[in-house]
């Protein structure tokens, strides 16, 4: 069953720049894949379409069987709760503690206070941040901040996790650990889409890779093809 499907999607911005052109692909439930390409290839636009920060000019983006073109107004936030997001710059709330940052998706979902506390502690412990619950983001290292961002993205067990250059600021050892964590997510049924231009890392992960160039999907390489 597919979680995400792009059907001949094009995106043209005002001014005429075509960021995506006739892109089609499908992401299965529990699948992990990479999207790579040079700067300006359309990776960010692809993420914006998934997140409903933008809408396609042509074609359809179907998420969990729902055509996102039909998701409007007050339904947009509900869609976003189904998509966990990890960013290169973490995007943590500076005035809130680690625990408060991680709790946000659960608060938005309307979980009980006691359940939220328990769930947050569990996820932070799993990511090795159990002792940093009350710290502010500014008191953490870059690696710790990235792990808090991941904890926030997975705490509500979204259907799809998208990560935009999640290892960009991390040393190779930490980057490998983060990738290993992402690779474990599909076992729980969460699909993972990682945008990265770190080709050595992508090759080591031996997952499916989509290659974008000037807004077009140039190649869709399966793990078997990648191994060859």
């Amino acid at each position, binding site marked *: 069953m597919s979680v995400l499907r792009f059907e001949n999607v094009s995106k043209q911005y005002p001014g005429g720049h075509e960021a995506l052109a006739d892109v089609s692909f499908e992401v299965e439930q529990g699948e992990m894949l990479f999207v790579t390409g040079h700067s300006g290839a359309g990776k960010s636009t692809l993420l914006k379409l998934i*997140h*409903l*920060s*933008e*809408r*396609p*000019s042509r074609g359809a983006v179907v998420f969990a069987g729902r055509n996102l073109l039909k998701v*409007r107004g*007050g339904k*947009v*936030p*509900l*869609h*976003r*709760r189904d998509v966990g*997001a990890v960013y290169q710059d973490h*995007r*943590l*709330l*500076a*005035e809130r503690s680690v625990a408060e940052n991680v709790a*946000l*998706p*659960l*608060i*938005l*979902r*309307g*979980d*009980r*206070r006691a*359940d939220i506390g*328990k*769930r947050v502690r*569990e*996820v932070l412990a*799993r*990511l*090795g941040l159990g002792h940093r619950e009350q710290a502010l983001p500014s008191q953490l290292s870059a690696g710790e901040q990235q*792990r808090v961002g991941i904890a*926030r993205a*997975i705490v509500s*067990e979204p259907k799809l996790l998208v990560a935009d250059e999640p290892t960009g600021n991390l040393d190779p050892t930490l980057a490998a*650990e983060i990738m*290993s*964590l992402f*690779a*474990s*997510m599909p*076992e*729980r049924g969460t699909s993972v889409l990682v945008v990265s231009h770190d080709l050595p890392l992508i090759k080591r992960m031996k997952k499916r890779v989509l290659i974008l160039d000037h807004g077009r999907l140039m190649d869709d390489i399966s793990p078997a093809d990648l191994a060859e």
Partner: protein
Amino acid sequence: MSAQPPTNTVAAAPRTGVGIWLDQHLYSVVASLGRALRRPWATLLTIGVMAVALALPLGLALALGNLQHFAGSVEQSREIDLFLKPDIEVARAQVIAAELRSRADVAAVVVRTPEEGLAEFRARSGLGDALGALEENPLPSLLIVTPREDAPTLVDALQRLPETGLVQHDEAWRARLQGWLGFGQRLAWVLAVLFGLGALLVVGNTVRLDIQSRREEIGVLQLLGATDGFIRRPFIYLGAWYGLAAGLLALGLLLGSAHALREPLQALASSYGSSFMLGGLDAARGAGFLFASTVVGWLGAWLVTGHFLRQTRPTET
């Protein structure tokens, strides 16, 4: 860091919409109060400006209320003062009074002799020694006539009496006073609207600055799936807190002003033989004012956050 697969052992129990709504409102109330308290000077400045803007029209309305109360007692005294000519004897004055009492449009007539008038004047004016130097009493007899209703014909009749020296009836003066009071009340309403609008803009601007400083945070919340209501709520509560605090401060300012004015005003009133007391706001009107000031704060924040959220909606193509 462990790379173990996530094991979610906590299954969130289904919750009712009301439970979620209450929880999220409580979260917003606490968050907004905390935010206001973390910036005490900025908060005090906003509340102070709002309080002055709210206190001015309310103070004017209260002053007019007191004047209205005072004017009401003037309105009650509808007596017509009929001063007889100085050469009219007291006995003749009594006869005229009896004749007037027999008229259908007269409720009562009181005769005040020149001696009684002089004694009253001496007591009130404090000019006892000077009055003692007079060789004879210059005051005429006075008939205080109380009409049954408004009686312009009665005034005409009194003026036509051959013994009449002067008829004093303050109807025109009272009409002018009522005109001024009506104008003052309308002015108070106009000022209330203008200053209320000013208070609303003060809150709106403060919340707008707050939104600008938290733009990044709001963007993150939107990406995480926060609804417009979730984002708007802390700002609206912040505006309501500002409004409530400004209302309380405005009431405090007015109470302080009333306290400062009460004693000299009572001394002034008693020198005129009046027991006039400065009136204030009763509990119901005070609560109504606090409610109104809270609504002003709430509305200012609601308008600004609504404008901001409309600008941050995803592009609809």
